[in-house]
């Protein structure tokens, strides 16, 4: 897994770089949009972390340029500015996620993992979430290499949660994910499947219930 960090502040850039390296990523740090373009031409990256407030050409321009060239690598934008206008702008331009400074490195890493997971899931049909592995092609889940026995519906729910790991998934969305031609599923049934799924997952990953909003799959139990 290779990450490009585009950040003009050396202290921030170095720390983010160090954190990625510690996580086992291959990470490169450049300090300008111009350098970023040059290395992106030459190398393959799985993810880019781009600061919006770069000198000369800013991060939004770099993002626009990337997308115009048809580069689809996941991009997470960083900004030190207030407000949502940057955010809206960045997401409109094709950013995949967004963090406001000051952020916690843990949060940045979790978000990046989620981005890579989604991108990787669609590309290779493999999703990893903590100790949990999902083989989307064969509809099989395993924990540390040990297969989990799941029913069709449990699998559908887990797949939906894992592809959106770290994000809240509404009960409605889970219901439509488990919908089959033969029968309908009630909101209560979703709760039943989720609780069964929880006991099967053990401490491999946590399915949190967020009352009134839905469910969220987290990598590690706190």
């Amino acid at each position: 897994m290779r990450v490009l960090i585009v950040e003009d502040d050396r202290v921030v850039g170095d720390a983010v770089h160090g954190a990625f390296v510690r996580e086992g990523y291959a990470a490169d740090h450049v300090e300008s949009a111009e350098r970023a373009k040059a290395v992106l031409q030459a190398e393959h990256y799985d993810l880019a972390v781009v600061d919006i407030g770069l000198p000369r050409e800013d991060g939004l321009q770099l993002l626009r340029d990337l997308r115009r060239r048809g580069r689809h690598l996941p991009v997470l934008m960083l900004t030190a500015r207030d407000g949502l206008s940057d955010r809206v702008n960045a997401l409109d331009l094709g950013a995949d996620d967004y963090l406001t400074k000051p952020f916690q490195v843990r949060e940045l890493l979790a978000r990046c993992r989620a981005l890579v997971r989604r991108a990787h899931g669609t590309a290779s049909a493999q999703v990893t979430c903590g100790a949990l592995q999902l083989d989307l092609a064969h509809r099989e889940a395993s924990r540390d290499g040990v297969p989990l026995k799941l029913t069709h519906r449990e699998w559908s729910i887990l797949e939906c949660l894992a592809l959106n790991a770290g994000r809240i998934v509404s009960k409605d969305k889970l219901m439509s994910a488990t919908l089959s031609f033969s029968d309908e599923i009630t909101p209560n049934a979703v709760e039943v499947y989720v609780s069964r799924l929880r006991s099967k997952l053990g401490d491999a990953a946590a399915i949190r219930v967020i009352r009134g909003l839905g469910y969220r799959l987290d990598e590690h139990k706190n």
Partner: protein
Amino acid sequence: MSTKTDSALSIRRRLLLWLAIPATLILLAGTASDYFWGIDPVRGAYDRALADGALSIAAHVHASPDSRIRVRLPDEAIEVLRSNSSDSIYFRVSAPDGSFLAGDPDLPHPPPGASNPSFHDSMFRGHPIRLASYRSTTRLGTVTTVVAETLNKRRQIHDQLLSGALSVDLLELAAILALLWLGIGLALKPLQALREQLARRSARALDPIDATGVPAEVSTLVTELNRLFATLTDSRSAQRQFLQSAAHQLRTPLTGMQAQLELLISEEPTPARRERLAYALSATQRLSHTTQQLLALARSEHTTAMDADFRAVDLAEVAEASVADHVSRAAAAGIDLGAELAPAVTEGIAWLLKEAVNNLVDNALTYTPSGGVVTVRTGLRDGAAFLEVLDTGVGIPAEERAQVTDRFYRGRQSRGTGSGLGLAIVGDVARLHDAVLSIESGADGQGTCVRLEFL
């Protein structure tokens, strides 16, 4: 939204008053003069007819050969005299010595006038009369013939003249008042338009007032207002620019420090040093938090928010994002954090509203013990969007509720590393959005319910 400005008389009323009173007086004077000018020729005509009567009677006065004056009035002559009249006609012929010759002996005898015939007003048998007296010269002296009539037909014609003049003038007055009303309305239209333009503006709007078609009398006022707006806009932009730069200059090194410390902690093998680094990290995080709050506080001031920042915001989305951000912390603290969200769209600055909700949820989690419940609710109540955060925590004593929105205020039960700015931010954001912030006890008097109602 109309503003009551009736404390002083409106310009429309002033104009109407000061134009209508003189117009009415002038018309009344006109009516009077019409009447008197109309009366004169009528009176002359009737007088002439009366004089003609006197003349025709005088024609029958003869000085007889026996030196006596005789009046031989044929009955037809009298008939003619008295005919076609709604008035009673009287006459008297007097000899040169004033003695009665013919007619009504008791008819007053007017003094001779300068002209011949001469006319007088008098009373006869209890009625006012008009007299024409004609002096004719005979061989035996001057004979005076007096013809008198009551005033009925004169009065009738007076009444007709008066009512005619009055009704025409009243119609004129009505027309003039209507035209005044219309004209004043038209003349004041630019002022009305200006007033409506001002009423439509939001209190935050600082764009210049459109001065096209504004009358010269108020254009100075508009120009001055626009200049004031421009000055305010400039100072706001400067303030925002400053805050934007300050935010950048503060956040970037804080991020660097925090990230470096996090990295150091994860790499540090010695527990004692790891603990020290953790202290440094926690202090840095506190500094970050306070910085973030001070910046939010500064940006939620009326003086820096611009009208253009306000967009339609669904509080449900803001609340959902805030809850999502706090799920891990709530789970770690053993608190059931949930939401009951219904669409609640209001005009607002989304990121400041998020900041406010974050602070409310943050407070609720801080002051709710493990096993407690925190719920964020949004929806419409009587058509107004609301957002509330309920917790089953320690609650805020009633006597402290008024102060908790003061900056840097920390209650007696304060805990954690709060800066005392959280509720101040909520208060400021509420004010900026014309929202009402209320703090009450939760259900069954336990915990706290903080509510924002957007009016």
